[in-house]
């Protein structure tokens, strides 16, 4: 596991400079079908960005392209002034909950320890520092007492927390979340909302696909409205006007499934 390098550092909150994520002219296609084009945006640590658009608009695809899971046909992604060629250790991707095999026999702490793998590579020993990172992550997400549970024994909200803890253990600065609120009950949604606010408050950048237009303004301070191509990007309150939403949702994407 070779890493794309960024120097060792603590959380952004301890830095004076703002870390910027700049996405310019990103285009993704599956075979000959364009899945996404002309996506350009710039944001920085501490923000919560919603990706909003109808089904098949390319929200998940954009997250995957940033995470390096699908190749970009064109365009650049820059993080902290360095081009991200394929993937970055400082990005953590969380798939949609239904895509995960929850019956995989692994405990919560085992899952969180996986977040250390990029730091450990193939051979490095699991040290006190790694242990501490895992403990801190479990503690931050309030799941220390669930550490020995199997992941299949968790509720939806707890599963989400376990995955976020994995991202924190990885010391990820950018969290790429695919529909994190889907399938959560009201309480779990509210506590996840607080958690995301906390995480961005301490300087992490959160990008999440989101389908609920009503809750978006409370949950996210920035918003990318897209439907195959970019409609708008900016503060949620400015971007998510009823006319803009109508325009983005009316134009149906030709033969695409997201």
């Amino acid at each position, binding site marked *: *596991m*070779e*890493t*794309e390098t960024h120097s060792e550092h603590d959380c952004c909150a301890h830095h004076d400079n703002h870390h910027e994520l700049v996405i310019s002219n990103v285009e993704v296609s599956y075979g000959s079908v364009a899945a996404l084009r002309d996506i350009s945006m710039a944001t920085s640590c501490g923000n919560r960005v919603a990706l909003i658009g109808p089904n098949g608009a390319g929200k998940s695809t954009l997250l*995957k392209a940033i*995470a*390096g*899971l699908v190749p970009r046909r064109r365009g650049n992604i820059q993080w902290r002034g360095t081009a991200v060629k*394929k*993937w970055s*250790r400082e*990005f*953590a*991707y*969380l*798939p949609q909950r239904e*895509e*995960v*095999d929850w019956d*995989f*026999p*692994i*405990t919560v702490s*085992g*899952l969180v320890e*996986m977040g250390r*793998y*990029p730091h*450990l590579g*193939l*051979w490095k020993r699991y040290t006190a520092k790694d242990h501490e990172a895992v403990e801190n992550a479990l503690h931050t997400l309030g799941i220390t007492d669930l550490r*020995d549970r*199997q992941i*299949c*024994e968790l509720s939806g909200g707890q599963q989400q927390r376990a995955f976020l803890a*994995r991202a924190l253990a*990885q010391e990820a600065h950018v969290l*790429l979340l695919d529909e994190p609120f889907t399938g959560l009950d009201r309480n779990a949604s509210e506590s996840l909302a607080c958690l995301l606010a906390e995480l961005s408050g301490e300087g992490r950048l959160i990008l999440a696909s989101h389908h609920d237009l009503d809750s978006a303004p409370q949950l996210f301070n920035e918003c990318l409205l897209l439907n195959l191509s970019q409609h708008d990007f900016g503060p949620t309150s400015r971007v998510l006007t009823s006319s803009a939403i109508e325009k983005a949702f009316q134009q149906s994407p030709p033969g695409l499934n997201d």
Partner: protein
Amino acid sequence: MFTPFHDPFFQRALLAGLLIGFTNGFFSGFVVLRRTALSVSALSHTMLPGIALGILITGTLTQANAFIGALTAALFVGLGSVVVSRTSRIDQGTALAILYTTAFALGVAALKYLGNYGDLQHWLFGDIRLVSSNDLWLAFAIGSVILLGSCIFFRPLLLTLFESSIASAQGVPVRAMNYLLFLMLILALVTSLQAVGCVLSVGLLVAPGATMSLLTNRTTVLFWGGGILGAAGSVVALLCAYWIDIPAGPAIVIVLGTAFLLAFLLSPKYGLLNGTRRS
């Protein structure tokens, strides 16, 4: 009672049982985590025509041409099932089932032309009591390769098996890891062919890991415990086979199957008879 230990054939069988049982038991951890018992079964049957073809072409059976033949056939059937499922409405499981039974049938049909090597019983159920010193060295070499490969790449392999999208977002070469697993699986199958034959090899490559998964939540215990269980089970089975005079291959699978049944019923955490099952 301990006379079998003085018999050189039995000594070699015992050593082979230890080596093959450990290798296959260890690797069964991956099979269980990957939930691919069906494709293991498919591949083990597919090896027969591959090896038969190897003998037909070269006129002799050596470990090398057995391996190459098995690998070729497994690749054909494995990749064939992928191609069929991607280009038609048939799903991969169905495609695999058709391809491997057809391949197996071809292999059985070809046995007639294999002269001295045409003993169906031997192919189907193996005979660990006929292993030579060369076979032992090969089992040892293959076991070492599998253990080394698994240990070196343990972290990326585990991550790939759990959630390949997270793995590749963390920079793991997911495709390469899948090829590595496939190659190690074929290697494990080639060794088990000698001991239990191509029909029963599935038991050796699935049962130990499945048993351990009922007893532990720790992945290290799943793998090493599977290896120890596979080795111990094979040795116990060989002794039983000697004392009550049954064939060794089936004995190994019966012992491992019994261990699984016991774990299923009595596991402290997940046993059927222990009330506190997970919902």
